[in-house]
């Protein structure tokens, strides 16, 4: 798998993603400066977390207008894989590569703690190494993770099985208490219709090493790495 990590000014979890990808694939991902446009050789493009352009406009709004986004759009149109985590998810939503928007957390405060996620489907390259219904732990760290979409969009996402992860209690129950940021229908992560673009708010990349308190995030990177193989050409 050839993976690239897009670095917008203000992104700050690019090294975390790089560690997780290298751990899973044995291969160092390429860092892509936001002015680059040639992404043809890549199998997976990751947009990491952080505060692109300081989040001074709406989160992700500035980055979504960046030159590299056109290349990411083309990569997606070719059937390429794209993963957006946290600010990356916000950017994908702003770029309309995924539906909906991420609003201020319901508490109007930044949230940083572990949350529990239920894996909603496993027939995707991102989640194939999990069990369906499995509850995993992942750190949250965001001020704007409150997923919003109109009812028709939410119904479509549910109907087409495009919800990847939901906030749940440790026992798997999708309660209001587990849904700390106030997301519609406890949604933590969603997929594109071809299931090759995924956006999620929590940070599985920060839980891939037992030293840091767990490895619940590792199967995500192992799964995508196995699916895209070591020598697989760009799709």
């Amino acid at each position: 798998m050839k993976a690239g990590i897009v670095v917008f000014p203000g992104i700050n979890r690019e090294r975390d993603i790089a560690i997780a990808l290298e751990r899973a694939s044995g291969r160092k991902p390429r860092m892509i400066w936001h002015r680059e446009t040639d992404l043809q050789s890549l199998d997976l493009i990751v947009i990491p977390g952080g505060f692109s352009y300081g989040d001074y406009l709406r989160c992700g709004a500035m980055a979504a207008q960046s030159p590299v986004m056109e290349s990411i759009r083309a990569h997606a149109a070719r059937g390429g894989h794209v993963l957006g985590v946290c600010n990356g998810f916000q950017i994908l939503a702003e770029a309309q590569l995924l539906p909906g928007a991420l609003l201020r957390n319901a508490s109007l405060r930044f949230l940083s703690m572990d949350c529990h996620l239920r894996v909603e489907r496993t027939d995707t390259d991102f989640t194939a190494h999990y069990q369906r219904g499995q509850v995993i732990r992942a750190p949250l760290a965001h001020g704007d993770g409150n997923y919003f979409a109109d009812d028709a969009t939410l119904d479509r996402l549910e109907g087409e099985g495009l919800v990847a992860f939901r906030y749940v209690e440790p026992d798997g129950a999708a309660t209001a208490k587990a849904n700390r940021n106030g997301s519609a229908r406890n949604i933590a992560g969603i997929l594109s219709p071809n299931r090759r673009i995924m956006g999620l708010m929590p940070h599985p990349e920060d839980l891939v090493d037992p030293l840091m308190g767990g490895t619940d995030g590792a199967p995500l990177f192992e799964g995508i790495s196995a699916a895209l193989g070591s020598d697989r050409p760009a799709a």
Partner: protein
Amino acid sequence: MTNKPVNQALAAEFGLNAEEYARVLDIMGRAPTLTELGIFSVMWSEHCSYKSSRVWLRTLPTRAPWVIHGPGENAGVVAIGEGLAAIFKMESHNHPSFIEPYQGAATGVGGILRDVFTMGARPVANLNALRFGDPKNPVTRRIVDGVVRGIGGYGNCVGVPTVGGEINFHPAYDGNPLVNAMTVGIAPADRIFLSAAAGIGNPVVYVGSKTGRDGIHGATMASAEFGADAESKRPTVQVGDPFVEKLLIEACLELMATDAIVAIQDMGAAGLTSSSVEMAGKGGVGIELDLDQVPQRETGMSAYEMMLSESQERMLIVLRPGAEGTARAIFEKWELDFAVIGHLTDTGRIVVRHQGSVEAEIPLAPLADQAPLYHRPTAPSPAPGPLGAIPAARLGEDLVKLIGCPDLASRAWVWDQYDSTVGGQTVKRPGAADAAIVKVDGHRLALALTTDCTPRYVAADPEAGAAQAVAEAWRNITATGARPLAITDNMNFGNPEKPLVMGQFAAAVAGIARACTALDFPVVSGNVSLYNETAGSPILPTPAIGGLGVLEDAARAVGLAAAPGQDLVLVGADPSHLGQSLWLREGAGQEAGAPPPVDLAAERRHGDFVRARIASGEVRACHDVSDGGLLVAVAEMLMAGNTGAVLAGPTDGGFWFGEDQARYVVAVADGAALVAAATGAGVPTRLVGRTGGEGLTLPDGATISLATLRSAHERFFPALMET
């Protein structure tokens, strides 16, 4: 402002007294210009010159074989092994945080980050030490909210994890909260960047944000007491831009990987003035600045305004000749301002030109050498009042009350707003261990980091209280298994012109020196914040200690969470000291008696024993005994590990709530074996219980459920802030 005549009255307005102004006239041989007076007044302010504290700070121990740079640089530097250095410092932003809590705290974080990355380190952790007023005071809630949001707003955005800190509440901080921010960075030990300018003719470069009219005379404001007019000082507070700071970190580190830099310093307090004066002064060269080249955010700024602006996220760099192109390309890539604004000269003077005229020309040597230095009178602190009657302990009830009190309640509400995991190296997050553990990326090494001070001890006995702060930092690092290396000290005191306050300061320095010497734990950086008074009422003396230790193998770190089926062993003799204890304060309203004595030989013996037992893998969890005493320490271990326990021992308050020093609680599989090993090492121990079950059973037979403990522990912050 610019139309006022430059005379003694204006000098007084700028914070210089008559004698100091006379010295300015003597050095200049004429009346200074407005810009010159501005430069003298900020360089000679308490904040920049340490004029009241320097004579005492000199007495601190600053050397050890692992110390690479002690005080005098932007931050302290210690070797941590494998060719790496840790660079760290703690700094106050107290005055701005009272006036404007969000920006005050945010720019405090930004400033200390720059002190660390200016030396070539990538910042890997932030900590803080916060003191707020009485929770019952309606102002407190607003200040807590602003400060916490400010620390999170800045730290989260720059992508440096906030991994630890401490918070106290006390009415003495009602009009003067303390915000002390600490940053720790990692650099190759042979790639440390210093601030001494060198190379006549070398270009002086300005990078970062544009200069505006914000924060003018901030250093002067931070060198005076507040009156009733504190609100009117809001314009002296700077506004932070963490996004630009993040770009500045990346751009500076990228430039530091080349050989372009001769010297570099951030523009902190007193901005362009202090950075240019200090860099040239340290290097024994002159410097000439052309202010027309300074990137400006506003039009029509005067030389005085530009030299005194404290606009944030700016750095001053002396480049090697010919390196301008390389440097410019890097800063332009990161979309930051870059301007050559001057060059070094052999005149030994700072010359400031603006719009065709010389606005300032000051000889640098006398500006530094003849800076005021005061041996201010000191007076000893009065002995604390004697202890009143000691009430009978009701262990369960008293414990529930104590763990819910403002100084001991869960800080989760605060930590949950700080990103503690960014970077992917956080081994022990806030609350998981006595010190935060942050692994060094690509190595097995980890840092153990803590901030500590118990101001009520310092108020009661400044020498012993300050020694205790150092000992507690050393103990907190030890309790994770790490080897303590060095400290940074952030000395927060009242008005030094009052002999009682100056006496507190001098005694606190003596206490720090005693503890640092005995524990081989030198001071490598620090900051002094004086005049922490509002309407004549000083804060509790607060020498906050930031401690740093190292673990050769991050996997060896232990936390404080006990698991079921473990023996709980007290390391250290039976506690009994109730003077200044939280139990007496919270239960009987007594803030009385002497603070616990600090026996540094015992501290070292007990700590070395605990560290060795952690290294051998025998200790599964460890927690030091501090605020609230033994029973609080045990309860915290149980709540963290989600297990109950059955405790045995005496039933008196002195044993369970005494705050004697040099004590730890360890959780081990075989308590008898640990006790035997300790006896052999001359360390007193006592088996105090065994973990398991759903509740905490006390020696008086009462049982409290974990749920009761937890709900009492977690109530305070949400109740204060969310209702």
